[in-house]
């Protein structure tokens, strides 16, 4: 059994806790949260040990792995402490508030030879993985443009109360929403985003943070594209993420449910016709042992557990080092906006 402890039982923390609870080889031994309502709920209704001090929790329960699911500004001290104690760490996104702290976490994970993963869940959707695979085969020729979008109804009124609306805590649409697309572009193209231009980040309802992010991004291989992200969009029932990549031989358009492939010429090896082809999530989704809110969330957690079971500290699909690429471009977007 792999013993896991979770720090931070907000929406994502609860989700990880329940998914891990459904894994046959995992025992969730402890949780840490300062909220008194959550404390009593877990004490009264579960067998999970409850703490308000994460250091005490790690020292007493000695977990194999720790999930850090707290506001971004707390990631550094918690992740560092857990790794110092020899725990593998899964940290939620975005990874760190400052680049210096981020690189220290990357370095310590390497020195301690620990499994390290950041929670960019888009990396586990069947549609996006198929897009990545097809792109790498060169099926659309030389890409010349991409367009990454993310819209959702998170902040639809003036005034909001949680850390997500506080800049110092790592809130805002850039950190919370745009980070997903930045990571997705990095993952699918296999290229680091090196620059950005023409960035603007309007506040629509929030007083302290931006509610939307628009920019032109440039990748290390010179490919450019647009970023359009808005978390104050009432049109969408839930977060809607999509990426389009255009090349001289065709284009790929993926969201979380569908992958559309347009080819100038048929591709027999892939069994794809000239013109539009559509692949659906139903044919691209592997089955998971326990499904809470979509296979991708289970796969994300189970992948981390698999890496621990296999002692694989290098083959993780979203290491701290990978996540630093997104943190780095986040800082560039902030600078470009000023």
């Amino acid at each position, binding site marked *: 059994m792999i013993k896991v402890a979770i720090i931070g039982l907000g929406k994502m923390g609860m989700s990880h806790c329940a998914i891990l*609870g*459904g894994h046959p080889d995992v025992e969730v031994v402890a949780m840490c949260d300062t909220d008194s309502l959550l404390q009593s709920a877990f004490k009264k*209704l579960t067998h999970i040990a409850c703490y308000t001090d994460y250091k005490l929790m790690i020292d007493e329960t000695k977990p194999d792995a720790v999930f850090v699911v707290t506001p971004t500004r707390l990631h550094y001290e918690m992740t560092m402490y857990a790794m110092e104690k020899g725990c593998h760490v899964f940290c939620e996104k975005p990874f760190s508030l400052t680049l210096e702290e981020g690189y220290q976490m990357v370095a310590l994970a390497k020195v301690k030879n620990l499994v390290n993963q950041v929670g960019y869940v888009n990396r586990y959707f069947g549609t996006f993985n198929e897009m990545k695979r097809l792109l790498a085969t060169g099926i659309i020729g030389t890409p010349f443009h991409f367009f990454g979008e993310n819209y959702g109804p998170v902040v639809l009124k003036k005034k909001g109360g949680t850390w997500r609306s506080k800049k110092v805590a790592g809130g805002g649409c850039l950190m919370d929403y745009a980070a997903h697309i930045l990571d997705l572009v990095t993952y699918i193209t296999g290229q680091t985003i090196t620059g950005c231009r023409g960035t603007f980040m309007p506040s629509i309802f929030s007083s302290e943070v931006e509610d939307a992010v628009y920019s032109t991004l440039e990748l290390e291989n010179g490919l450019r594209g647009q970023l359009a992200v808005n978390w104050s969009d009432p049109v969408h029932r839930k977060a809607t993420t999509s990426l389009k990549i255009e090349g001289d031989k065709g284009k790929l358009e993926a969201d979380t449910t569908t992958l559309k492939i347009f080819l100038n010429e048929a591709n027999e090896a892939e069994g794809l016709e000239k013109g539009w082809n559509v692949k659906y999530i139903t044919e691209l989704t592997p089955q998971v042992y326990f499904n*809470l809110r979509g296979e991708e969330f289970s796969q994300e957690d189970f992948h981390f557990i698999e890496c621990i079971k296999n002692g694989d500290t290098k083959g993780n699909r979203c290491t701290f080092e990978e996540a630093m690429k997104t943190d780095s471009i986040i800082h560039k977007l902030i600078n470009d906006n000023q």
Partner: protein
Amino acid sequence: MMMDKVILGDNQFFAVNHLSDERSRQQAIRFKENQAIIDVLDIAIDCGVNTFMCTTHDRIASICDHVRKNPEKYKDFKFHPCMPYAHKYANAVTELGIIGTLKAYIPGNILSVASKAGIAYMRKDFPSLMELLVDAEMKMFAGTKTPVIFLQNVITDMLMGLGMRELLVHFAEYVKKKYNADAGFITMNMPHLVDLCEEEGIKNPVICSSINKIGFRMSPSIEKYEEYLRSDKEFRPIAMQCLAAGALGAQEAMEYVCQFPKIESVLFGASSRAHIQQNYDLINSLLRP
């Protein structure tokens, strides 16, 4: 009492499409007006469907109003409410936090010790807080027939994963006592849930889960589902996502599902007369003919 063999779902009305975000947008536009939903329900009734399984979405309240105002027309019409409308809470938790969400959705002042809500909150009495949330969600259905009341899969599976089994048991007891309804559970993990109900003494539960030929959204595996559907384990299965979000044709999809006589009802979403009639006829003729 047995449930109807054929149940109409509501995803098509609220822009839920598991296969296409684009189709979602088209649906959102078509069903912008409540009358468009009522028109489809009337077609469904005309085709022989008398049970409507729906989330406790705000817009369902006006459908309930319409049903109450026309008692003769809807005398055989039943709702299967599914609670909560998860996105409402998920978005609220992101914006307001957990306490803020409880304040917003629990009727009465949770900070006042003069209310049931306040006392339950102060005592951290979670079964009572759950009762208050159930009552809040059920309010819109007052005066309509709700023979089965469901917990949405995200809640069922969350409580199952967290090991908060007591709340699942309490939900079943409460809807029986307060609404004289059977408890239903929607889940993505049917075999796990059947085991849990057996262990916790939830007798013969209604369990609604994806059941389709290609094993879509069937955890841990299609083989395990088939084993349970052929077993003599005590549960009342409802099959949903039989068409695997549109990946399967109606005929082959229903032939697969209806090979299991244990399945009490089949749930599907459709908004045209032709599709509703086709699915109704298939299910009616293939399931326990």
